[in-house]
């Protein structure tokens, strides 16, 4: 039987959801107009005032926010509450030099943790469960979000944080952990390690896993589910909007329900900014309807996604999003299929390789050719040609499963992938169209 953390809202009628969204948006726009000068200026530039916003449909009139705005406003420019009302920050890794610092009031933390609690209950969690949180703790939202959610559900929370695989396995086995929260690649690694230690799916007490924060394929899901003897649920989120739990998977495992009483989602054409109808593929945009300290309005995630309001057998009425297909900034269309370099990176990482690759696209006899060059590494090299060919075939299969089209995988000598100013050139498109 399907269980819900907040059944009234998770199963609310469409009309009820729209009513809540209308009410919250009007209030939120008044809040940012009064308390967030950065966004007020954007609204004034666009010729919009709070009086223009009466229903959720009026959201189209509002200007977008993007990563560039967050960079401009760093660190305090996007703060819409006095510091005395804020209780926490979380931050992104900033590896690309674009660190985001997000602020939370107690109200913001509560609603975020409730969203994570919904995800845990959707994965079958109750107060009888032992929930091991192996996401990183600290500035990263992964650990904090699921930790808070686990508390709200009343699970016995095991805050192992990431790493120290031996200890993770010891706690899973000794404390009989039933729910595991971590990144999918770490789940796969844990599964491999447990297999090596001789634990089969029947010995492992886990029943569910909540895995997110990076892209993963259906193939990877099946592998993890089989090896650990669990059902693996996807979870999505981003620090700008709150963290994990912006959307989550239910038992149906077909798309993630967006917590749209808090986060309103739109799909737009990334070039024109125009809102696209349901079912279209485009850029995912989020508006925080009731966050206080860091209220992103029409924030462009750059994730390419599709939304659906088709009825879900789990009973939840909230809109579902498909797993993001990639990022707007680097999409390629090969043989009519959208391909994102990040997907190739994911396959390489999932199979234990360094993400050192180059995509070469060309057109021969009116057909696109698609080749992925991968640099040979000492770890991957063996004297056995058959073993190398097997690895090559496994990479090809992984790419096919992730992308839906076949790629030729070529192994090249180390350090031969073209680099410009120290950064590898990831895509060479030779097509003359």
């Amino acid at each position, binding site marked *: 039987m399907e269980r819900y953390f907040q059944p009234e809202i998770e199963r609310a009628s469409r009309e009820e959801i729209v009513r809540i969204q209308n009410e919250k948006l009007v209030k939120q726009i008044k809040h940012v107009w009064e308390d967030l000068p950065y966004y007020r200026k954007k609204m004034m530039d666009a010729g919009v005032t709070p009086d223009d916003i009466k229903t959720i449909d009026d959201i189209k009139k509002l200007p977008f926010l993007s990563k560039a705005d967050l960079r401009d406003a760093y660190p305090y420019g996007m703060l819409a509450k006095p510091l005395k009302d804020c209780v926490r920050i979380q931050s992104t890794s900033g590896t690309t030099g674009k660190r985001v610092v997000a602020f939370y009031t107690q109200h913001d933390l509560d609603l975020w943790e409730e969203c994570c609690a919904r995800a845990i209950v959707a994965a079958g969690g109750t107060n009888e469960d032992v929930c091991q949180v192996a996401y990183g703790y600290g500035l990263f939202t992964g650990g904090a979000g699921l930790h808070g959610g686990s508390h709200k559900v009343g699970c016995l929370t095991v805050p192992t944080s990431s790493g120290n695989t031996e200890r993770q396995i010891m706690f899973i086995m000794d404390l009989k952990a039933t729910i595991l929260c971590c990144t999918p690649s770490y789940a796969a690694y844990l599964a491999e390690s447990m297999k090596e230690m001789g634990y089969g799916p029947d010995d492992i007490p886990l029943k569910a896993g909540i895995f997110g924060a990076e892209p993963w394929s259906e193939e990877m899901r099946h592998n993890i589910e089989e090896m650990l003897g669990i059902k693996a649920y996807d979870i999505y989120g981003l620090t700008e909007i709150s963290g994990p739990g912006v959307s989550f998977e239910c038992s149906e495992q077909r798309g993630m329900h967006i917590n749209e009483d808090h986060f309103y989602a739109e799909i737009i054409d990334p070039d024109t900014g125009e809102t696209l109808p349901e079912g279209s593929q485009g850029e995912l945009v989020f508006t925080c309807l009731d966050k206080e300290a860091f209220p992103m309005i029409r924030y462009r995630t750059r994730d390419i996604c599709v939304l659906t309001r088709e009825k879900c057998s789990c009973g939840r009425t909230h809109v579902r999003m498909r797993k993001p297909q990639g990022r707007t900034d680097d999409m390629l269309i090969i043989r009519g299929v959208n391909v994102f370099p990040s997907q190739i990176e994911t396959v390489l990482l999932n199979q234990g390789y360094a993400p050192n690759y180059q995509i070469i696209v060309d057109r021969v006899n009116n057909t696109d050719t698609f080749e992925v060059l991968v640099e*040979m*590494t*000492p770890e991957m*090299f*063996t*004297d*056995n*040609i058959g073993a*190398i*060919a097997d690895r090559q075939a496994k990479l090809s299969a992984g790419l096919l499963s992730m992308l839906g089209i076949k790629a030729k995988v*070529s*192994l*090249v*000598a*180390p*350090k*031969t992938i073209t680099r410009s100013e120290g950064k590898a050139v990831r895509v060479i498109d030779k097509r003359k169209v």
Partner: protein
Amino acid sequence: MSVKQISVFLENKPGMLNQMTAELAKSGINMRALSLAETKDFGIARIIADDTLSAMNALKENGFIAALTPVLAFEIPNEAGGLNHLLQTLTDAEVNIEYMYSCLSLRGQSKAVMVFRVTDTEKSESALVSRGLYSLTQEEI
């Protein structure tokens, strides 16, 4: 007594093998035996060098990917049926040969040397030695 073979990854394009031999020549390394295995886009050069350590260092320092693999080196008579006798022994011992190549013997023209990689190095070696075949050491090859 297995012998250390150096296996080098080579991309299958003009000049790659030459780049490798250039590095070995610069370091004054003589190759005692060499074999090439190739696929469509890459190959593996298998080398037995007179100075394994220096050869490995020279290759690695110059960006080559190289690994050491234990292989067996046996002396056989340089005459009709010489190899057949050795292979019959391995067949009897039910050992599979992954690959094999030959090189010159330092011990005169009446001898030849076979280098081979098998699924079970120890088992093969004891079978061959028990039939009177001579296993070469790294120095003898």
